[in-house]
């Protein structure tokens, strides 16, 4: 059995990163709610967690899901379709800076960019957080950056 460290350690080490990612994903105003939901969900599941090897990746995965839940709850109910097309989701909000543009990227690209530059994650951890292969993570990041360059040019 793996021994899990005190949950407080997770807060001390990763809370700032999780907040950073969420600010990139849902914007500054809604990041707080998602942050609470993320850590409460983590706390609920924590005693049954089997592998304490990558707690940071685990937390970021939960944060990512909470960000998606948030976008859905904001009136964007998923509709079953034969083919999934990625549509940009934007949360216009006051303030300036690049994150606003990042917020307008398609979900996977936005998440990849936020994880890479918002919290400095390596590709492998971005892949773990997004539930995709490292190649796919790299591709999303690449596409996201390409689009950003175009938008900002």
């Amino acid at each position, binding site marked *: 059995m793996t021994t899990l460290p*005190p*949950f*407080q350690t997770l807060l001390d080490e990763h809370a700032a990163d999780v907040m950073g990612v969420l600010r990139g994903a849902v914007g500054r105003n809604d990041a707080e709610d998602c*942050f609470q939901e993320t850590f*409460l969900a983590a706390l*609920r599941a*924590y005693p049954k967690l089997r592998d304490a090897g990558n707690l940071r990746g685990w937390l970021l995965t939960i944060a990512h899901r909470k960000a998606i839940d948030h976008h859905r709850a904001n009136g964007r109910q998923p509709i079953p379709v034969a083919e999934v097309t990625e549509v940009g989701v934007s949360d216009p909000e006051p303030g300036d800076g690049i994150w606003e543009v990042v917020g307008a990227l398609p979900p996977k690209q936005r998440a990849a960019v936020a994880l890479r530059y918002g919290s400095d994650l390596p590709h492998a951890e971005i892949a773990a957080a997004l539930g995709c292969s490292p190649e796919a993570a790299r591709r999303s990041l690449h596409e996201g950056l390409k689009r950003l360059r175009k938008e900002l040019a």
Partner: protein
Amino acid sequence: MKASLERLTERANDEGLLDVAYTISDSPFGPLLLAATQKGLIKVSLPGHDPEETLEDLAARVSPRLLEAPARLEETRRELDLYFEGKLTEFELPLDWQLSKDFRRRALRAIDRIPYGRTRSYTDIARSAGNERAVRAAGTACGSNPIPIVVPCHRVLRSGGGLGGYGGGLPMKEALLKLEGVL
């Protein structure tokens, strides 16, 4: 960030997700780590013990849902402060005994009944715990006391009157006995 974390701790507590709450509290002897479950005070870690080790031990033995939550230990702090000022002779805190089992728990419960300002010998404790000859085991039980000060193992001395040992060091044991007017 600080406000977010405080809100989180509060919500975790309200939703019953905070199994072990802890805080570090000042005392005349140095910082004490205090930890409580929903049942009551489970751990007092004396100065000189590594707090990180104590927390890891609690996470493994009690629950990893362990957060710094001073609000849950306010009453403990208040009673300890009063005790150190000589204004409190009996703690009224609920205790969680789950870290001690069998003979040790019986020995610690016997220790818990020693009145303020009085002392017992290790032999007395062994007898109360149900085995008069287990004097050494009674000593070990004192040494393993997870809730020192509140469960007053400092009131247990050698039969000849020698101080015996103490987890916080003998000067602390001596000071506590002086505070209670024994020495």
